[in-house]
């Protein structure tokens, strides 16, 4: 019970007295946590220690972005173009069914050049010119690894800590543990976008922002790129704002009578949820209303941000959510599963995400929000150093690769302007400082003031946690 964290108690008390209901404040807040009408919520004793970050923006690149084209330059691949991947390097790696029939695993260099960027001298691809400019804000992790080699299990592992469905997503764990700081918006919001051109291929799964075995109120709320940004948010034509108020007042009065008669605190909670819904009907359009954004916003994020449903738009909205205290902001951009047509598709995908992602970091920084906002950019695995199909200097593709991949983080107490981890000269194996998906989760939770071993939920006779029985905080990433 965290009534003391409730910052805006007045409004609801006013409402309650207006409708003539004598509601027990304690009972009310007790019933509502996380994403609910109550601000705060969450578990007693959390955060476990002083957090560095108050919120997370996860820019998920779905499909497996190729680390060798974006973050992890490997000149050796060019020298040994079209040679067979040495067996000693390949080791026991499982090969997916898609290339297992290929006669040869031919080494494939990146077509795209890299630059050392900023004062930190981080290597970043020319495909990401805007990201290059914020190199000094980034911590690039080149030693991520995962257990899965196919999309569904890999993305499920990254988003829920388990390859198999059924576990809560990262955001659901946070909502369960930390609750919400905004009584007008959900604390966990999700936005999905597809490439501006070309196939979006792999689908997403609502389990990625689901609550698994946690109560379903902890699941993420999808903000949609339509004029009904949250499902059924808009009142039906014919119900004006005033009429809705009038209807809700009547409803609350009748529910209040029922509460008095039944003694059931769920009725009180229901009344409060209707009030939250009413507030969301104002707060969500306010969040999504970009008409007052100045020209410099559009200059920063790019004109694509004017397009509803675009990744750029979502980055801008993510900043607005961060400003409003949304705790976990999850973006997905699809289309990175570039098996055969990597060279055709990469320029499009990078064009979609590079500028807005960099803009978001810049924007958060200038608004003083970057320090306590953790931004993560990356996918579910990397791609092979050998070509799918034949090796070719100009046109080629790459298959899935889980042994190593790259992502970047910014803000939220993560060391800026650093690189972490090292892969071998083939970009196939990690040779230094591996970071498993569980370690990423442990670190993410740590930045939010959570000991990943102590955020647990009992289900089917045992305590579950996001990191299962694994994970260690990667101290080297933390500033």
């Amino acid at each position: 019970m965290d009534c003391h964290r409730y910052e805006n108690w007045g409004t609801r008390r006013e409402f309650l007295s207006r409708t003539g209901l004598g509601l027990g404040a304690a009972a009310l807040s007790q019933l509502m946590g996380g994403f609910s009408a109550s601000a705060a919520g969450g578990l007693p004793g959390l955060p476990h220690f002083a957090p560095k970050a108050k919120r997370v923006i996860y820019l998920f690149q779905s499909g497996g972005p190729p680390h060798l084209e974006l973050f992890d330059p490997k000149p050796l691949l060019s020298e040994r173009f079209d040679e067979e991947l040495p067996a000693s390097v390949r080791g026991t790696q499982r090969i997916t069914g898609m290339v297992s029939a290929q006669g040869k695993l031919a080494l494939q260099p990146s077509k795209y050049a890299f630059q050392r960027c900023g004062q930190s001298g981080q290597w970043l691809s020319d495909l990401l010119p805007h990201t290059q400019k914020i190199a000094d804000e980034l911590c690039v992790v080149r030693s991520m690894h995962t257990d899965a080699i196919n999309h569904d299990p890999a993305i499920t592992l990254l988003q829920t800590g388990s390859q198999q469905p059924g576990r809560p997503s990262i955001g659901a764990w946070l909502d369960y543990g930390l609750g919400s700081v905004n009584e007008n918006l959900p604390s966990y919001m999700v936005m999905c976008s597809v490439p501006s051109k070309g196939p979006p291929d792999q689908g997403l799964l609502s389990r990625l922002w689901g609550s698994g075995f946690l109560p379903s109120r902890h699941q993420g709320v999808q903000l949609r790129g339509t004029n009904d940004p949250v499902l059924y948010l808009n009142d039906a034509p014919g119900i004006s704002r005033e009429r809705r108020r009038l209807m809700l007042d009547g409803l609350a009065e009748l529910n209040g009578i029922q509460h008095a008669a039944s003694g059931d605190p769920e009725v009180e909670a229901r009344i409060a949820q209707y009030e939250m819904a009413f507030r969301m009907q104002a707060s969500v359009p306010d969040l999504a209303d970009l008409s007052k954004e100045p020209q410099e916003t559009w200059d920063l994020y790019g004109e694509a941000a004017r397009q509803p449903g675009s990744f750029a738009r979502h980055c801008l909205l993510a900043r607005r959510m961060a400003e409003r205290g949304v705790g976990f902001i999850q973006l997905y951009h699809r289309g990175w599963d570039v098996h055969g047509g990597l060279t055709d598709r990469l320029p499009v995908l990078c064009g979609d995400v590079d500028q807005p992602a960099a803009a978001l970091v810049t924007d958060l920084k200038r608004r003083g929000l970057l320090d306590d906002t953790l931004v993560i950019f990356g996918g579910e695995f990397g791609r092979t150093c050998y070509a799918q199909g034949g090796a070719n200097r100009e046109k080629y593709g790459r298959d899935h690769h889980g042994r190593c991949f790259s992502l970047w983080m910014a803000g939220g107490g993560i060391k800026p302007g650093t690189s972490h981890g090292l892969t071998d000269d083939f970009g196939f194996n990690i040779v230094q400082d591996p970071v498993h998906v569980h370690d990423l989760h442990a670190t993410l939770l740590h930045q939010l003031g959570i000991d990943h071993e102590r955020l647990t939920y009992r289900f089917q006779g045992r305590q579950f946690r996001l990191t299962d029985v694994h994970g260690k905080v990667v101290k080297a990433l933390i500033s």
Partner: protein
Amino acid sequence: MRFFPIVGALWLAGAAVCPAGSPVRFNRDIRPILSENCFHCHGQDAARRKADLRLDTFEGATAMLEDGPALVPGKPENSALLQRMTSHDPDEQMPPPESNRKVTPAQVALVRQWIAEGAAYEKHWAFVPPVWGALPPAAAWDRQPWDAWIRSRLERDGLAPSPEATPEAWLRRASFDLTGFAPTPAALDGFTGDVIARGESAYRDAVERLLASPRYGERMTAEWLDAARYADTHGFNNDSMRSMWRWRDWVIDAFNHNLPYNQFITRQLAGDLLPEPALEDRIATGFGRNHVINSEGGIIDEEYRVEYVADRVRTLGMTWLGLTMECSRCHDHKYDPVTAKDYYQLYAFFNQVPEWGEDGRLANASPLIPAPTGVQQAELALLNQQIASAAQALPEASTAGRPLAEVLAFLSRAVSVQPDPAGAGFRVERKDGKLINGAKPEESSGLDQKVTDHPALGPVFAFPAAAWTVAPSQFEAGSHKAWTWQTSLRWRGGEGVLLSNMAWQIPVSSVSHGNGFEIRINAAGAVEVRMAQKWPAYAIQLETTTALRPDRWHQIAVVNHGTGTAAGLRVYVDGVESDVVVHHDGLSGPVGPRALSVGRKEGPEPEAYEGDFAGFQVWPAVLPADDLARMADRQLVRLIGASGGMPEALVQLDRVQSAFLRYQDSTREAVQALRVAQARRLELKRKFPSVMVMAEMAKPRPTHVLLRGNYDALGEPVTPGVPESLLGAWPPGAPRNRLGLAQWLTQPGHPLTARVVVNRFWQQIFGIGLVKTAEDFGFQSEYPAHPELLDWLARDFIDGGWNVKDLMRSIVLSATYRQDSSIAPGLLTRDPENRLLGRGPRFRLPAEMIRDHALAVSGLLRERLGGPSVFPDQPEDLYKGVVVDADYPGTKWLTSTGDDLYRRSLYTFWKRTVPHPVMNVFDTPDREFGCVRRSRTNTPLQALTLMNEPALMRAAGHLGQRIQAEGGGTDAARLAWGFRLTTGRLPTPREAEVLAKVQNQLRASYQADSAGAEAMLKSGGVSAAAGQAGESAVWTALASNLLNLDETITKN
């Protein structure tokens, strides 16, 4: 459900309810403490056991260790267990600080008392078969014998039962519980009157009516679908459509017919293994196939096949055993006495299904069967009858007594009236001593086969022989092209390949392993057609029920309509279309034409055909059945003619006779009637829905312990078995397969099955089980709130023949159930979850009932039992940006029309990765795995949904109209009528006042805004007479409010 412990609440297990001075009981008081805090390192998992100490057995706990025994019965102070628990030294303290586990002082006190009292261990309560306990003394309040337990427990805690609910409240509650719908106002009136007139009998009769309603089966099924992880899509990221609704309808039927629950278990687990299983028994086994199936390209097949088997074990554990079996998949169970070996022995039962890891991209995965509906079965029976009588109407041997020459002369006249159909693209002919394509002589390459000339059939090719390939330009054997292939053939027996262009990429998991087209003949003489993008998963596979005979000339034809489905393929044997068995119908995309090998198959396992071919022809079109029949007859006439009459005629006498009947004037019509009926039967069969089922492999698949649960880390081999020492011996004589497993599960002495099942039905009614952890009855489960009651109900269930309707009847007529559900002051803090049942059940309706209730009261509901799932309204762009970018079935929501927009929610199409939002927002699970306990939350998204979801708005519109039309003459009467329709009771004066006030406010608002009123009507999907728009808008808004009332969506 409440998720925050409430300070001062009474707790059921442990100190708070252990009456002062009474002895501690191991099962109730101690095991939960040890299990949670100690067993993880000192339990039965030997691999993880620390300090050689196990505390889960008396022997282990009292064993002499280096520092003395952990447990000294009668001597708490000498017991290291207690010393460690109370120590403040981080090195000594148990559980260790880093474990994040902690023992409370109250728990320490209990342990101390337990040791002092002798530290007796008990076998875990749930592993001891349930027994009839001695009932507490009866009292007037009781309506069922078992009510005594509820009452006496309340008394012990100084509580009293709540007063009885009003008849109306009881009827509404029981109607929701037994049928999923509220009673109509007329039913409420009738019942109230009946209670006054006939008292208790009125209750009993009402229950009988509810149990007899077909809605009962639907309502019970809704719960089971969660447990059985039913869905209309396969899950994973492709999440395409599957067809399992025939299984769902089987469940509805089973509940409606009150199939004894032991049979309910047996048929779903092993219906296929019953002696002479009926179609329905095989459909029931779809239960074992409801799991998710992955069709992502490139996955490792075995990895996922193993997942499916594991899912069956998990589901069995959750639904019937009440054990978290999956914990033992990677290691011995940390808490329960279930080893990894136990797990894989159980796994072995489910490891015998002829299935693949990657399947189900486009349709049902193998194994599957056609599953005609009741109506179709009736149609089929009728057609069978017609065919039988039409066949009977034919004279048996109309050629008898006629000279063969006359018969042949007649036939040869008859078959030569029309020439062979033109337009053949390929036809083998012999010209100038060379073989050519008679249709296109310029394309004659590849025909360098050794041949002999047959006087009737022309060039005959003998096989096995060297390669003969047919170029794609000559035979476009593509899956999505129309073509007809016909040939004469004389087969010499054995399995053989007639035509094939299958390409076999290595390894087997390759995406194009087995890509192409193949026609084969199997050892029994059936003709089999295969078309595959990736054999065998993404393929069509069918075979004829008609068998060829060896060493006899036949004429066969395969016709492809180019639909890419099994229904588009026809196989004719001797001019008659054969019935086929479809083994798989999941071709995932077009298979293009490629050069065909005749009489052989290339690839890793080459095969050949032994026999002859002749008259090989291909048409790039679908040939009519009549043409194919005539050509077959012509082949027959020529064969007989060439053989000099008698020998071939004797061999083919059956064909001669049926041909004669077909062309003779006096019988032609009767034959035609028979053929039409036969064609209709085939057409009907092609429309049968399919359902995935369980089946056993011909050759059993060996099962191994999988180390750490990994599919490729084989440990010791195991055979099918159950944890007998824990849960009871294998029934004598039971087969070691799923059927035996079902017999073991349902034997009367099984400690878990009946308890778990009864507890779940109890949970369905009271919102929380007697054992709260409905899925787990193991050491980590909660000790039951009323253990004797649970045993009593379980015993009664078993001894009464596993009768579910009896159980439901017993519950809803009990005094416990009939209590008022309002929460008396003080009770909320004493017993917030109503575990002691000092009041009736009260909680929000499940998602399905919320929508169904709104549809019912508005009059929109359209009831029809069973059938394919339907697509009610859902936001058009819901899948946008989320669903896979491929045109698989199930990736687009094709909104239903007409009645199907308003069917019961049970029938709403269930897409696992993006469930219907109305269902999802009200806490339905996604069904990627089974779930026996839904969460019950209260969120603003629910409010928004009830306020604005278009179908619910239309329900409001129609409800408003209905109230105006049926609710009486005055506003007050109408408001009261509408309120009663949705809540089941009349409003109090205070409530009526509020309703009237809001009505007046809305009137004022809409009167001043005619455009708003019109818009409101449109939102409600209704219209109004001239000048009435404002008034109808008011009623729409009021009706929407009624549908949003907490009481409307609450079972109370």
